[in-house]
């Protein structure tokens, strides 16, 4: 498959700059550990925040971080679409007999983000181990659903951001409000925030669908239902459909840049 050939090429490229790779891997890892540590100290003092324990918030943090970093690693081409337009790289996608979506996906893979992915995964496993809850096939399925849904949502946001770049040529900070901002915000369950904000991140950008809502089911919280909470990740994933079509549509409006 073409994607794996590209993967191999990205790996070869990475080997050309080994030191640079290890340094960024290291810094990425440290950054995510610092974020976790600050959360730990917070809970060390307050024990419970808005009804959530440290291990529960740690799971929330780990899920969001895992999804975001994973998408940053493999969906990097969409994240940096503005650069692709400015460098003329997008022009050369148009002259290849493959879809622009496929080529953008293949165009960049940022392995150094794997440092964060690994940290997030380790935190997730550790937090699951110390969190006293009743496991079952359903809970495992919900957890996997959360991870998949998170990746799909962040990926959709990257795609929407890329679509906007077609019109603005330059990258937009507005997009980062939702991607980076969303990532920071959703590390804590949404009920710690004012209602308006929580609503935006539930219904407009469905961040709640891969952490707050399914986590209520995961921890057997009062009021948690199968249809409303356990299956929330499935609803959240639907965002990729409009995102994909908006991306496709924006490509027909591409104006290219001068040489």
């Amino acid at each position, binding site marked *: 498959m073409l994607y794996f050939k590209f993967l191999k*090429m990205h790996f070869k490229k990475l080997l050309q700059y080994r030191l640079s790779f290890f340094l960024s891997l290291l810094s990425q890892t440290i950054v995510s550990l610092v974020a976790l540590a600050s959360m730990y100290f917070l809970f060390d003092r307050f024990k419970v925040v808005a009804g959530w324990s440290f291990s529960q918030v740690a799971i929330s943090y780990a899920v969001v971080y895992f999804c975001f970093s994973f998408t940053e690693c493999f969906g990097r081409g969409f994240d940096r679409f503005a650069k692709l337009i400015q460098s*003329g790289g997008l022009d*050369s996608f*148009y002259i*290849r007999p493959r879809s622009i979506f496929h080529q953008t996906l293949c165009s960049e893979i940022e392995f150094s983000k794997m440092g964060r992915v690994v940290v997030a995964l380790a935190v997730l496993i550790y937090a699951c181990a110390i969190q006293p809850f009743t496991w079952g096939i359903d809970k495992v399925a919900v957890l996997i659903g959360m991870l998949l849904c998170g990746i799909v949502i962040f990926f959709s946001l990257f795609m929407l951001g890329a679509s906007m770049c077609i019109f603005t040529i330059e990258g937009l900070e507005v997009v980062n409000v939702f991607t980076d901002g969303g990532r920071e915000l959703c590390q804590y369950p949404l009920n710690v925030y004012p209602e308006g904000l929580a609503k935006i991140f539930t219904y407009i950008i469905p961040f709640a669908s891969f952490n707050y809502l399914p986590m209520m089911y995961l921890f057997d919280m009062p009021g948690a239902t199968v249809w409303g909470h356990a299956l929330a990740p499935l609803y959240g994933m639907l965002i990729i459909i409009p995102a994909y079509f908006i991306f496709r549509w924006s490509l027909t409006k591409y104006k290219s840049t001068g040489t």
Partner: protein
Amino acid sequence: MIEVKNLSKTFKIAQKDKGFWGSVKGLFKRRYLEKRALDDVSFNIKEGEIVGYLGPNGAGKSTTIKIMCGILTPTSGDCVINGFTPWKDREKYVKDIGVVFGQRSQLWWDVPVIDSFHLLKDIYKIPTDEFKKQLDLLTEKLDLQSLLNVPLRQLSLGQKMKCELAGSLLHKPKILFLDEPTIGLDAISKLKVREFVKTINKELGITVILTTHDMNDIEALTNRIIIIGKGKLLYDGSFDQIKHKYSKHKTIDIEFEEDYQSVEIEGCQFVSKVDKKHTFKTSDENFKLTDFVERVSKKYKIYDVNVDPINLEEVISKLYEELGL
């Protein structure tokens, strides 16, 4: 093979008012200026032709090429190449075209050239034996053997261009678009690129559309040129005819035996003077060197005369001038 009919492309450019408040206003209310990058351009190109596509910067050359490659969608007009409309059947259409942009690379910067070629093999789904045959052919014709295992970033500009050319031909395209392929190259590399383009056109029958600012590219490769300016098609025909039209323009250097302060010759325009050497220009159609020397030597003592016909760069700049560009 290539039919371009009434092609037009209009870009909308957002107008901004000056200053801080102008920018703020621009956020809410935008005025757009329409820029016609291409205005009703039509031409046909037959299979196996080499066509030079000329025009000053900003004339619409790149826009045309980008439309023909399927990158841009025109505002109106038609373009059928190889039976396809580029921007409609993009994925099917581009299998049969090769594109080289002189100013940007399409190969991977950090990895050996051969790896980029193998990736292209997968992108175009070229069967292994066909790929090998074509690669061998291109390696031989472009003398690439020593370059294939070197990362692109370590190659010189000329070497890079050779690799770009090879990369654009691996999938055996029927049409090759070259956008300023000799830009920035040294004299030897330019010659090699021209020779190679001529060879693939003759031996493989590839149709070539070439944009360039170097008239020597045109002189070496083709007689058919298309000139556009300000988005409009201005000329479609033979290069020789244009050269002939301007061949009456000549530069004459005369070195005299004495240091004359001013020399006046009928039918000639004085340009400059360095010591005893005076330079003139003439547009006399019936210019004959023997008559000229005889005429001048009646009044002045001539030591040496040198006549230069107008060079190609001057031909094209005169033409642009005449066309109002």
